[in-house]
């Protein structure tokens, strides 16, 4: 193998051309983890031996003429709130019963295995996907490969950092208020929150039953499309998973946006705290979409402030219901950030919760009208680059995060939303474009991301730390 591929697409081509084997690829990814994981806190547990065995099986399948699709032989990591049979799930917590999910695969993990993917290990998250990192607890502190003094985002922290650092080519995250798109944005990779119910979420510890989404992170939109094709589809264990037909998302990637109407919402996405580079970077991204054939208009997302409140209120209440017994008996074992997150659920009355669901319904109706005039809505994913660890305290950073993270709206509505890199701050931290579409129109959302990535190379940029470590290794 002359060089390690950066994307699933590239690796899939190299595997089929005989330019590398899955064992070589997986070994290279493990070497990256050996070099960088201690500094980046990406992995909670690695499945090195099992991964090499799976890689060998993928190679044998290729040799026998069996091809299960682009994910065959590809190293993929799993956020440690989803069950994988190699080992226990911790949810990065002292509290989760080790027997939960033991020896079992979440349905989406089983689907990846059936597609020939190589499961490399379980990666870091926020505690139960909602508690900010807590240095008093015995878990790695996840760090951003672009600047290790910054947070890689969450809650799919390790998934984002590991892809950016070359420890695996794709990964599974979850998204309740932005937890796929936030780490994608901060780590300079791509991440898709599909339509609510598009991907089954059984076998995953919940935060918000009506907000949780399971989905892919990878370097590119093409890679996310290949992953979604494997992950999507109803599963009997998740009654909220949709029976809507699963499209061939890769085949829909036409490389252009001719005839596509794109709405840009700048109204709600430039609070005072945003990075000075954001406006120019967004303008350049929008110009790129126009160069691909899109017609762009300015829009204003309806009920913006109300939906932000509805998302968090719903998450607090639904999350507290799940955690209540353990919070009462093991309060101190939870991360400080998790305690404060869940405690807010006690401030939400039953009527408040129902009202939030009524407002979500009203906003969905207004969005349906908006999507009669546009096919996609684009915004920044976040207003700043990654947050600095030395600037934070637990709750203040969550509040600050919610001010500058523009993702939760699409959890409240359930529409699909993709985050793709679109440039950098003046400090060299990634900035990200969010592309949202109609329910179950992931094909168009991914097509837009892919077309954008055919005329830009932000998604292929490698953090200097990673390049330097690889050079030293050689």
């Amino acid at each position, binding site marked *: 193998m002359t060089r390690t591929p950066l994307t699933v697409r590239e690796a899939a081509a190299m595997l089929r051309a005989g330019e590398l084997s899955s064992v070589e690829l997986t070994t290279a990814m493990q070497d990256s983890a050996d070099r960088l994981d201690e500094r980046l806190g990406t992995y909670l547990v690695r499945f090195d031996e099992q991964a090499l065995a799976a890689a060998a099986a993928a190679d044998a399948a290729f040799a026998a003429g069996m091809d299960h699709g682009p994910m065959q032989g590809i190293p993929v990591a799993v956020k440690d709130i989803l*069950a994988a*049979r190699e080992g226990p799930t911790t949810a990065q917590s002292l509290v989760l019963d080790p027997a939960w*999910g033991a*020896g*079992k*695969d*979440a*349905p989406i993990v*089983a689907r990846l295995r059936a597609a020939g993917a190589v499961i490399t290990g379980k990666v870091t998250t926020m505690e139960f996907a909602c508690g900010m990192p807590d240095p008093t607890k015995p878990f790695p502190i996840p760090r951003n490969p672009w600047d290790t003094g910054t947070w890689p985002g969450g809650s799919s922290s390790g998934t984002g950092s590991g892809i950016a650092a070359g420890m695996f080519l794709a990964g599974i995250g979850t998204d309740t208020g932005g937890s796929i798109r936030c780490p994608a944005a901060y780590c300079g990779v791509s991440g898709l929150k599909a339509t609510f119910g598009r991907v*089954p979420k*059984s*076998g995953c510890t919940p935060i918000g039953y*009506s907000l949780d989404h399971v989905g892919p992170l990878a370097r590119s939109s093409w890679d996310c499309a290949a992953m979604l094709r494997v992950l999507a589809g109803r*599963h*009997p*264990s*998740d*009654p909220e998973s949709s029976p809507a037909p699963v499209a061939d998302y890769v085949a829909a990637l036409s490389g252009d946006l001719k005839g596509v109407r794109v709405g840009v919402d700048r109204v709600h996405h430039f609070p005072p705290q945003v990075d000075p580079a954001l406006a120019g970077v967004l303008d350049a991204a929008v110009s790129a979409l126009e160069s691909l054939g899109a017609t762009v208009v300015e829009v204003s997302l309806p*009920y913006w*402030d*109300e939906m932000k*409140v*509805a998302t*968090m*209120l719903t998450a607090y209440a639904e999350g*507290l219901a799940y955690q*209540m017994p353990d*919070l*009462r008996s093991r*309060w101190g074992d939870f991360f*400080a950030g998790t*305690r*404060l997150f*869940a*405690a*807010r659920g*006690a*401030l*939400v009355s039953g009527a*408040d919760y*129902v*009202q*939030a*669901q*009524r*407002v*979500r*319904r*009203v906003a*969905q109706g207004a969005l349906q009208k908006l999507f009669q005039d546009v096919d996609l809505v684009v915004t920044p994913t976040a207003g700043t680059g990654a947050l600095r660890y030395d600037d934070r305290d*637990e*709750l203040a950073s969550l*509040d600050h995060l919610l001010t500058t993270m523009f993702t939760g709206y699409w959890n409240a509505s359930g529409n699909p939303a993709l985050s793709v890199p679109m440039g950098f701050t003046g400090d060299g931290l990634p900035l990200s474009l969010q592309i949202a579409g109609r329910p179950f129109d992931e094909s168009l959302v991914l097509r837009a991301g892919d077309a954008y990535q055919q005329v830009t190379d932000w998604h292929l940029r490698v953090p200097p730390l990673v390049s330097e470590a690889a050079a030293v290794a050689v």
Partner: protein
Amino acid sequence: MSDAETVVRTLLGEARLPASDEEIAVLAAAYPDFKAGVEMLYAVAEARYESPGLHFEVSPVFGDWG
């Protein structure tokens, strides 16, 4: 004790969540904005007679995973 602190302490106590005085203070400081957000939801006139985005299944299908 402020009104916000009274409310927060009472509600957490009713939920039997053993938050520390420091944690209660943090939540109490944020409570006015939190409550304002809640009231904003009730102020959505279009939601007055709307049904919530909730669905109750009369005959659920139960399936295992893993």
